[in-house]
């Protein structure tokens, strides 16, 4: 029995219920629950690393009739990212929300969001994925409007409606799959699905739905307002984790379930959209006047990078080179997750101190908040893809795949994207390190500055020097047709 697999879902869920019942203790319950979820994920990861992919058939019913939870390399990596990021953000949020009247609701929804993320990464059933997607979407929407401003509500509402549309597209894809193959279990489907109109249409619809949620150009327009207007800890997880969840699903579908269906053309289209996203998102980030808006546009660009991998993956022959590229994709996603959450938390610290986040008025930040300025710099390094961050390695491998496949068109995209990322990062740093009175002096290094800098360090150092673990984990697949 691998009942271990249920704990990453059960722990945060149970904590959420407790936090709802005892609102006065919600902060404690929230932080502790997040920490225990981290523990559960670590235990699961250890087992996957030691003994390969694991499966838990819930209720003892054979997968297909029942629902199976599965953990393999990819899901473990995503789980680790989400739980580590959420741990750090939780510590930050315990300060950020300490005076908010919506504190207890925040913690309940926070834990529900973690529940949803973990459930999504572990799910091995298509319809169950739909439910987790909805749970993720709804809890994210509610968290996003906790700021209470008109803009944040409007953005959250748009986010909700588009998310629902995306879910519907995903769900009709699921319906077609059930119609064509008579099961919803992903392991069975990984074997059964073959090229044909059913698989084609289902894949298109599901991908289309997920593209909305992962904010790929031109479906990105909801993201910048939603992510930039939410409270800082929420922005952090929205950009770092929630967007990644949809991306994770796309990867799962494309590489494990529909690997025989995917064609070069389809991958090329997504790659092109990704390329436009890189250029457009970076450009918009360069123009942005507010720190959080800049970070949100940068997310659009970073999502674009991830999609650049798809045509390359489709062109590479199955085997080591493809696994290397896939690992690089995952590494890039992870690095971005850590870096962007660090970025948003740092932005939150600045906003609380300065009362605004207008980039041009951030002079003096480096003097008043050295740790936070340092965090911004580290996160920026990871966003540009400079060493020793994980994204440097990923970009190296991305370029390498470009050369191997001969798909030269991506070369200028990557180059210009990198330079633009450098431009917007250093534009910000230029202001932050300039003298000025934009940010008042701080009394001491606050508890809220530490989580951000730790996240940034993970993105720049840990994922740089210990990245080979990613490549060791990625080939461990729970799906027969899949990555391995």
């Amino acid at each position, binding site marked *: 029995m691998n009942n271990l697999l249920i704990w990453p879902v059960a722990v945060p869920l149970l904590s959420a219920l407790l936090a709802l019942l005892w609102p006065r203790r919600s902060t404690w319950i929230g932080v502790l629950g997040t920490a225990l979820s981290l523990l559960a994920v670590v235990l699961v990861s250890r087992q996957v690393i030691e003994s390969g992919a694991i499966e838990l058939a819930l209720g003892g019913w054979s997968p297909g009739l029942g629902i199976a939870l599965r953990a393999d390399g990819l899901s473990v990596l995503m789980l680790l990212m989400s739980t580590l990021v959420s741990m750090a953000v939780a510590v930050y949020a315990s300060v950020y929300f300490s005076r908010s009247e919506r504190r207890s609701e925040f913690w309940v929804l926070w834990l529900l969001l973690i529940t949803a993320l973990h459930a999504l990464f572990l799910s091995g059933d298509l319809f169950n994925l739909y439910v987790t997607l909805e749970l993720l979407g709804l809890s994210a929407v509610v968290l996003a409007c906790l700021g209470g401003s008109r803009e944040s*509500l*409007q953005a959250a509402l748009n986010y909700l409606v588009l998310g*629902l*549309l995306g879910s519907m597209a995903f769900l009709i894809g699921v319906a077609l799959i059930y119609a064509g193959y008579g099961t919803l279990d992903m392991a069975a489907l990984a074997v059964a699905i073959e090229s044909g109109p059913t698989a084609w249409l289902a894949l298109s619809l599901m991908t289309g739905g997920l593209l909305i949620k992962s904010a790929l150009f031109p479906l990105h327009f909801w993201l910048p307002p939603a992510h930039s207007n939410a409270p800082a800890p929420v922005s952090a997880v929205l950009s770092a984790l929630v967007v990644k969840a949809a991306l994770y699903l796309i990867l799962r579908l494309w590489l494990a379930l529909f690997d025989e269906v995917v064609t070069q053309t389809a991958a090329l289209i997504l790659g092109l959209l990704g390329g436009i996203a890189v250029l457009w998102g970076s450009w918009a980030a360069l123009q942005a006047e507010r720190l959080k808006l800049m970070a949100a546009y940068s997310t659009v660009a970073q999502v674009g990078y991830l999609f650049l991998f798809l045509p390359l993956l489709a062109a590479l022959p199955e085997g080591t080179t493809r696994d290397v590229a896939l690992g690089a994709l995952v590494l890039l996603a992870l690095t971005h997750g850590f870096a962007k959450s660090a970025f948003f938390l740092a932005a939150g610290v600045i906003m609380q101190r300065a009362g605004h986040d207008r980039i041009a008025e951030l002079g003096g930040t480096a003097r008043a908040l050295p740790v936070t300025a340092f965090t911004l710099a580290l996160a920026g390094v990871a966003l540009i893809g400079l060493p020793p961050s994980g994204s440097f390695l990923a970009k190296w491998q991305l370029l390498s795949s470009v050369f191997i496949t001969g798909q030269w068109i991506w070369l200028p995209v990557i180059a210009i994207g990198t330079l633009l990322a450098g431009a917007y990062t250093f534009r910000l740093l230029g202001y932050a390190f300039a003298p000025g009175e934009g940010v008042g002096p701080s009394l001491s290094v606050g508890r809220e500055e530490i989580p951000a800098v730790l996240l940034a360090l993970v993105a720049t150092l840990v994922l740089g020097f210990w990245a080979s673990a990613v490549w060791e984990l990625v080939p461990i697949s729970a799906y027969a047709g899949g990555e391995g």
Partner: protein
Amino acid sequence: MTQALIYALTGAVLFMLGVRATLLRDALLPRLLALNVCGAGVFLIFVSLAYRGDSLPVDPVPHALVLTGLVVAISATALALALNRRLREMADE
């Protein structure tokens, strides 16, 4: 199986009608109606998959899925309406 096909096709039409209206309208309430029609379309497809003629027992799995979907749909609708209401209040203030 013809009945099942009729309803499944109806489901497809409803789904796309819903998508169309979601794309064309920009006020919240019509969009919510549209999304609900979308959902109904998908549910109809599911249920027609379950139908195997009047004599054979139905496939209960899609029924359960649709029940779950219904509850999810109304939850989302309720949340969207609540957000919308708050926005209107703020506009009035």
